[in-house]
């Protein structure tokens, strides 16, 4: 007895062939997404700033290449990121503190906003004094 199928042989082959091309395309697309997803290793996150004697009490040292500012407040070291919290321009020193050259935000010595458009204060960054008196700055895990 001959069994009859609801789909013809022609349709079956056509459908499976197209499905296989589709699956192949799907796999190729997956590989393509993975290909685009590569990014080079991150920039350095730690900076050796030299011995603490280079930072006298009350001093303010700007590193525009990091960019960050280090304050020595009576032996307490505090570091602020000099990246504007508005859209990421590097701040420049001014009489009141730091100004943004891009959109005119102003920050005081302690990173607080004096004038907009920036809304949030400057990021505080972690500084450590190592056993040998060397100062180390971490740019990644700074907190707000």
């Amino acid at each position, binding site marked *: 007895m001959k069994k009859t199928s609801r789909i013809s042989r022609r349709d079956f082959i056509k459908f499976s062939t197209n499905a296989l091309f589709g699956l192949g395309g799907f796999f190729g697309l997956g590989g393509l997404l993975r*290909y685009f997803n590569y990014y080079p290793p991150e920039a350095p996150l730690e900076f050796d700033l030299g011995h603490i004697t280079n930072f006298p009490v009350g001093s303010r040292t700007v590193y525009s290449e990091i960019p960050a500012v280090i304050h020595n407040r009576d032996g307490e070291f505090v570091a602020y990121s000099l990246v504007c919290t508005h859209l990421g321009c590097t701040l420049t020193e001014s009489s009141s503190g730091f100004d943004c050259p891009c959109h005119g935000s102003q920050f005081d010595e302690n990173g607080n906003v004096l004038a907009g458009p920036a809304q949030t204060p400057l990021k505080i960054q972690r500084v450590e004094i190592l056993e040998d008196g060397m100062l180390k700055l971490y740019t990644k895990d700074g907190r707000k």
Partner: protein
Amino acid sequence: MRREYILINIAILVLGFMFISSVSVGTSTALQQATATTTFPITPTFDPARLAQPPTVYPPAQSDTGAQIYWGMCMSCHGDQGQGLTEDWLNSFPPEEKNCWDSGCHASDAPASSFEIPQTGIPSLAGAGTLSRFSNSFELYRFIIENMPFFRSGSLTSREAWSLTAFILRMNDREVEGFLLGDTSGAAIPVHHKVSPPESQIPGTLILVGFLILAAIGVSIQSKQAVPSGKPNFFHHLHPPSIPAIQSRFRYTLGAGGAAVFLSFILLITGLLEMYYYVPTPDQAAISVETIVTLVPFGNLIRNLHYWSAQFLVIVMSIHLLRVTLTGAYAAPRRFNHVLGVGLLAFILLLNFTGYVLRWDEGIHWALVVGANMLKTVPWIGEGLYRFVIGGNEPGAPTLIRFYAWHIFGLTLGMIILATWHAFRVRRDGGIAIPPPAERRENERITRFDLLRREVLAMTVSAVILILFSLLVPAPIAQPISTFNVMKGDSQAPWFFLWIQELLKFGDPFIMGILIPILVVVMLGAMPYILPNAKSKELGNWFPRGNRIAQVLSVLIMLTILVLTVLGAIPN
């Protein structure tokens, strides 16, 4: 047997093939590693000179700093030449320290305040086959900073570990002078080449290949269908409702023209993808290629596809040219299209050469210098031509950026225009050359559907071959060119110009290196205009009587080029 079962059987075959190929990849890797051996001078005596501190250099290169750290921390185990803890190295210590080696200590009160020296398993760091687990400097750095020195792992600073990496690269003759390794810059200087591509990519690629093979089977067993009705669209210019069957006969066309189109599309797509990671500066070019090959997921596959498509394209186009000549197909009205085709071949050779130079590694060094200096020998305009191509008095950054611009834009644009024109002329001249209807021995026609089916089948099969080839055979890359005055490495022209390299041995560089190759191209292009052509009723067959002279001439030219290429490929 029902034909559906064939599908299932072949699917099993494909799965088996996938399994076998993945196993064989693993085996060949192991073999490669096992056959690599290292030789070091054997002087089994105490030699204080071998233990001396390396001289300090000012200003120290990164590798010089690394040499000092290596001397203090690593040398006692890894040896003065990176040979590892060999018998010879053990015996080169003074007797009192040798005793210490024998007793397995490294201090008077070991292990209390010190550590035990591992007696075995200390790997060598230099020479063929060593460090094969690291494909690039970043992986090597990561291993060093995480694991070394073994008795205080993790105690090295980032800077020390990078210096050591630089020194180990120097021991392996892979240092890039003037290049400062670091967390952001030194990611991918090659250490040793991985024999196989990153493993996670093999299964995915093989599954893709499997799908394509099954799809190809599906295409090949599809039954003939009538031409679908509907309005004609753009592609119907290339695929008329029906064409004479003899025009699509493989033993007549060899499928070479279609294969060239297919390879060109692969080249355009993979080339676009490579541009995402390739950096066209002298110090970064080879390293960015290395990054694509070793770090970017599927980058190895994509670069190999680009490389091998380009190589195959030269071969396929040569076959196409020979086919057209040996069948006399270029007779009027196709004479001008023959000129366009020969022009395309010249463009592809230039594209292949510019692409080859973009590697900017020691492998292309010699060929670039020679090729550039050859331009100077052109009478009157030589110097100007050299400056136009090289952008200065010697190859450098301007050269690379010019080659890049020509490769990705100038020549590619010209090729696309010529190829489109060529394809348009093929159709306008009535498709593949066959006799006029009255002279044909058969008048069978195939439909557009059938033509497309054959094309899809051919493309799928080509894609499978190309992907498997690219998965198994890596494209070459060597260490970056550090200075143009010192030549290291391969002094060969790329294979498609080996015949010119051989010609250069016979005499004047302008005549042999420039004039003769140009004359060859011009002669091939001018054949339809200056030599007798095949008559129209002779078309559609191999070796027609009408253009015998051109057939003999082109076969002689191709044979000469082939012989010269083989001569050039044989090492002296």
